[in-house]
């Protein structure tokens, strides 16, 4: 149980909804402190793969191991960060209360969060640079700020693996930097990160490895090796554009 055990291991994993296979043969390893970008066109199965890591989708072939355990058993130590715009902006909660939600599982049923929990939540919100917005209603923050609040909620959980579902969509530059800084700190502390994204530049910037997915795994390896025009074209079905040396994908 030392630091060299992978945070996440895909062993020829195939996923299905009922009897329909939706993702085939994902194979690869994410070590503590590493980050992986999950890249592929819409409908490729990126969200499904993330949900499988959470134990919410059936693994019908191969295996997924999270922190050395089955996905369901590892949930305590895995944090999922949804896209902020999937949440109701009118909901009467403050940013601080959203972050505190990250402590609920720890607190357990029937008990109330204590001073220690509130302290952890406050620190987490500070780590994304929004300590001054704790009392503001979640919906009054900008899209990028809301995404940061959701990351803070995850940080409050003190997870060893983070799963982010397209966190940089429509996020302003300031928030993007804040998110990247917080993620870097988490990685430095030993957490592993999986980010599903379309943004290749960010993948280059922030991720050690890339998993290219289009219902089956096209490739899994170090970022520079994987983000090549040929592999991208294979993943995106011939719809990748290459301009000025930078690869832009649909």
């Amino acid at each position, binding site marked *: 149980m030392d630091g060299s055990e992978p945070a996440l291991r895909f062993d020829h994993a195939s996923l299905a909804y009922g009897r329909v296979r939706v993702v085939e043969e994902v194979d690869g390893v994410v070590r503590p402190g590493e980050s992986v970008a999950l890249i592929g066109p819409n409908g490729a199965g990126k969200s499904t793969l993330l*949900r499988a890591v*959470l*134990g*919410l989708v059936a693994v019908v072939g191969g295996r997924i191991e999270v922190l050395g355990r089955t996905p*369901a058993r590892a*949930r*305590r130590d*895995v944090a*999922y960060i*949804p896209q902020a715009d*999937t*949440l*109701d902006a009118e*909901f*009467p*909660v*403050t940013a601080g*209360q*959203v972050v505190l*939600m990250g402590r*609920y*599982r720890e*607190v357990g*049923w*029937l008990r*109330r*969060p204590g001073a220690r929990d509130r302290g952890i939540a406050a620190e987490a919100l500070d780590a994304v640079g929004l300590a001054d917005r704790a009392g503001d*209603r979640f919906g009054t923050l900008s899209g990028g700020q809301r995404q940061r609040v959701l990351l803070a*909620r995850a940080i409050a959980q003190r997870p060893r693996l983070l799963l982010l579902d397209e966190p940089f969509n429509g996020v302003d530059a300031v928030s993007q930097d804040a998110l990247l800084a917080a993620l870097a700190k988490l990685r430095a502390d030993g957490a592993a990160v999986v980010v599903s994204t379309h943004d290749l530049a960010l993948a280059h910037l922030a991720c050690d490895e890339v998993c290219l997915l289009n219902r089956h795994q096209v490739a899994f390896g170090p970022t520079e090796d994987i983000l090549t025009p040929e592999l991208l074209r294979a993943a995106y079905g011939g719809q990748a554009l290459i301009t000025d040396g930078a690869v832009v994908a649909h």
Partner: protein
Amino acid sequence: MSLLVEPFASPFMARALAVALLLGVVGGVVSVFVVLRRLAFVSDTLTHTVFPGVVVGFLVAGTNGIVWGALAFAVLSVVLLTVLSTHARITEDASLAILLTGFFSVGVILVSRRPSYTADLTAFLFGRILTVDMRQIVVTAILGAVALLTLAALRKELVFRAFDPAGAAARGYPVVALDLALNLVVALVVVAAVRAVGTVLVIALLVVPGAAARLLSDRLAAIVVLAAAIGALGGWLGLAASYQASIEHGLRLASGATVVLALVALYGVAAAVGTVRSSARRRGRVTP
């Protein structure tokens, strides 16, 4: 002010007020969750599916049997509803409508077999708040207490699930069980209210206070307290109005219905206040 106090000197009005206040507070608190989770149609369905239980209970054991019949059908319909919404291939709207009309018709058929059919029907649908006795008040209080205690125990999980269902599932919370629990709480309010205000009017108690409170505050804790207060106030004002109309002006205004109208009027006030609040905020002034 005496207009609001004088009616309740008579014992029967005082008992009606006790029930109305109880239901107002309990319904008010529950209605916050109904509004947050957008469960108004689900709640409406529950009022209709509980109805045949009311009739069966009445046929088997008279007026005192109503609560038990309602409770049995409440549990049954909550289970059916939750199962349907998890597995149904047709849209949730459609499955709710089918449940609602099917169950309700069974109830109507059952009650139409009786010679006193219209009297019974109106009693079940609109309640008989003026003739509640102490026993019924106690039953209402117990059911209401169970509902509130359940909400209090599960409140942080219910709020988390309401705000971020995907996040809650990801944390391993049993979302289906939580939904079942909330639906049961709603059903309990319907059962608690059936004798006093009837199954048709209870939907007002389950929606209006929460909706009105939401217009007045952005903080969940305040919304809950406001909703309870609005629910209780609606009961008080509605009963007083029905009494004054009847005694002073010889006007028959059904008491359950006046409570509902009072709630709607309070919603109107809340909407007006809410508009003033938001335009003040837009002008840049700080509102607490």
